[in-house]
């Protein structure tokens, strides 16, 4: 089985897996980073969102071979103590219901804040529309992103 060196959360890991294995399963099954969730497997729901070079990527749609030198950040690497402005805002607004999609939501929002540090309301909605929440926590996600934008200044 081939070995790939991938940079995840600031550390280079050697992972043994087929090159066509989606990053999602490499993270979860091989590196035991289970904060990245499986939702649809076809790039529609956003539950598996991670950052690749600061851009939101659906890890179910990016293969191990495609990762290359990209620096991957998962929810486990977003902050040391769970104190990223988005994580704090998520807690402050009591966003999670079941919680399953929220790590993907936060990573999507993290990408937005990197690319567009001062998003308009419409830009927030446009970006976050890529991520499905079956519990319907959208109103609170929206408010949490706005709070994090303010705190990030």
């Amino acid at each position, binding site marked *: 089985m081939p070995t790939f060196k991938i940079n995840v959360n600031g550390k280079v890991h050697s992972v043994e897996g*087929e090159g066509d294995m989606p990053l999602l399963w490499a993270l979860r099954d091989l590196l035991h980073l*289970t904060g990245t969730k499986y939702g649809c*497997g*076809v790039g529609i729901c956003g539950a598996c969102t991670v950052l690749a070079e600061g851009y939101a990527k659906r890890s179910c749609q990016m293969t191990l071979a495609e990762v290359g030198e990209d620096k991957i950040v998962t929810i486990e690497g977003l902050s040391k103590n769970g104190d990223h402005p988005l994580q704090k805002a998520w807690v402050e607004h009591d966003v999670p219901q*079941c*919680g399953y999609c929220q790590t993907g939501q936060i990573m999507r929002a993290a990408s937005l804040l990197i690319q567009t540090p001062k998003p308009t309301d419409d830009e927030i909605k446009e970006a976050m529309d890529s991520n499905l929440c079956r519990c319907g*926590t*959208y*109103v609170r996600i929206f408010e949490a992103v706005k709070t994090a934008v303010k705190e990030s200044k």
Partner: protein
Amino acid sequence: MNVTVTRRSFLQIIAGTGASLVLGSFSSVACAGEPKKLAFVPNAFLKIDSDGSITVSITRSDMGQGVRTTFAMLVAEELDADWTKVNVANAPGDSALYGGQGTGGSSSTRSMNKKLRTIGASARLMLIGAAAKKWNVEASTCKTENGKVLSADGKSLTYGELAEAAQAIAVPDAVTLKESSSFKVIGKATKRVDNHDVVTGKAMFAYDVSVEGMLFAVCLRPPAFAATQTAIDDKETRAVPGVIDVIPIPSGIAVIAKNTWAALKGREKLKVTWEGGKTDVTTRMLRADMKQAAIAHKELPVGGKVIEANFELPYLAHAAMESLNALADVREDSAEVWTGSQSPDSAQNSISRVLGLPKEKVTVHNMLLGGGFGRKFTNEWVMEAVNLSKIVKKPIKLLWTRECDMQNDLYRPMSEHAIKASVDDAGNPTGWSHQYIQAPGRGNGEYGSNTYLPYEIPGAAMRGAGVSSPVPTGAWRSVEHGHLIVVNECFIDELAHAAGQDPLAFRLKLIKSPRLKKVVESAAKHAGWGTAMPAGSGRGIACFDGYGSCIAHVVEATVADGEVKITRMVAVVDAGTTINPLGVEAQIQGGFMDGLSTALKAAITIRAGGTAEDNFDRYHWARMSDAPKMEIFIEDSGGAFGGMGEVSYPSAPAAIANAVFAATGKRVRQFPIKVEDLV
């Protein structure tokens, strides 16, 4: 009013727990043992450690409704605990220890609140007893506050300091629960106990659990319901690196592999011939059968005005974000399972029966559920994992992929409603006849003659019927109310229109329950009912009284550019006594998004005897930009704690449909609404 509760047999100190005070179920003392990895002591309801930390055992499943937080609040209230020291741990599935753990019907708080408060109150008296003994004073001179016992002369001891000594105090025979006027925790906006774990990715769902030596499994399932495999060619599957075995099981063919991806790739390569199933069945055919099944309406009085309509509601999938999955480790003499189930106790029973193991040898760890909505009761995915682990003799982590989950759901039944009603010349209703036809396959069945109407309508009647269907069905958020309230609330609007009356005024005239009437009046007031709306926009109202709570929705909709846009939602709820306002608000937000999704987007269609939709690209659900401005008001009337998970749904799609009528003049009688029908 004080409520005095006599201790029932469930509560007793669990022996041999060292320096901690542990209150557990009476029947379980014999099997108190070492703490398990994921549940602090398998038979305990409450544990107070010498460092002051408090752990409340959560005996119902949390699928997002927040029961881990509410249950902890109920105990903390009566215990006078320091909330910052309160932790929760999910109880494993075991009805002998915890009673029934089935989580649904918005029943958790309603059925468990007295028990949980009694546990908190009992522990509090025991801690006071321990302190009084130390200080050599009368227990009645002591009080408690924020995790401490205080003496009349200013001494204080923390609960942690008293935990060991409290074990020597007898469990009180009776406790008096607090009056609502002295609640400090109940009614306080409290953030969810799991928030930090969720936002850091540490929250554990079943598929996040790993055990030594486990293998991964996915299944290929038949394209039509109840079809079976006749021939399997697994040569290419077995050649996929990482694939270990291919095992036919009653529900399909399992591919066992070293990781999820290898299992998925192996499944792709399976060549299977299927036989059986009712491959000629389609949604269209079932709909036609249902229309044929309509029975005669109850005769309506002669005179006045009669209106009549047919409503069509589709099958719905639950589509929880976390698809079904379980990890099972079956050994010769024991079995251990990790899953997210709405009935972990039933899972324990089934595993014990199937494996022929005594129940105490079967451990079912119930993890967080990534959504449930009624889907996660039946445990068939758990039994598949158990079966596979038994065959492979290794721990098996089974994933139902999104496609498996969506195409093998126990769907919210499709329904057909023939409904007819009359008003006299003065605009008063004189009759109502509702025929409720479902394609049940199995599941919901009929609902008798209950009209589910909160309105005073003389001679109102309901008749139910079913047609046969191979489509498996089950409970879906709010169960039958998701059909009946939606249709009733749409049709009462039509009747108001026929009577030439405002739909709000018409409802208020006919509503029997003063509680319901109050929330309807209030929602209309908050929403500015009766004020002008721009052309192409409209306001709709609907209400629901059930599960111990009352709710009214007012919705504003705009229909333009080939789109229905919901721009505003006002909801007023009376939950009796709200435990956590943040939780109630969250349920109303979420229930409304389900209402919006099912009013405007979602339907499951049956094609060739199976489900056509297999993922979120064709089974559409609301996204952030669909969410309107939401204004939610909790206006409790006091008294019993009402349910909330189901309460927030049924009137939402109806209020949307009524708003669409107000905007366009077109009545909605088919869900989801097709915008092309509105022009």
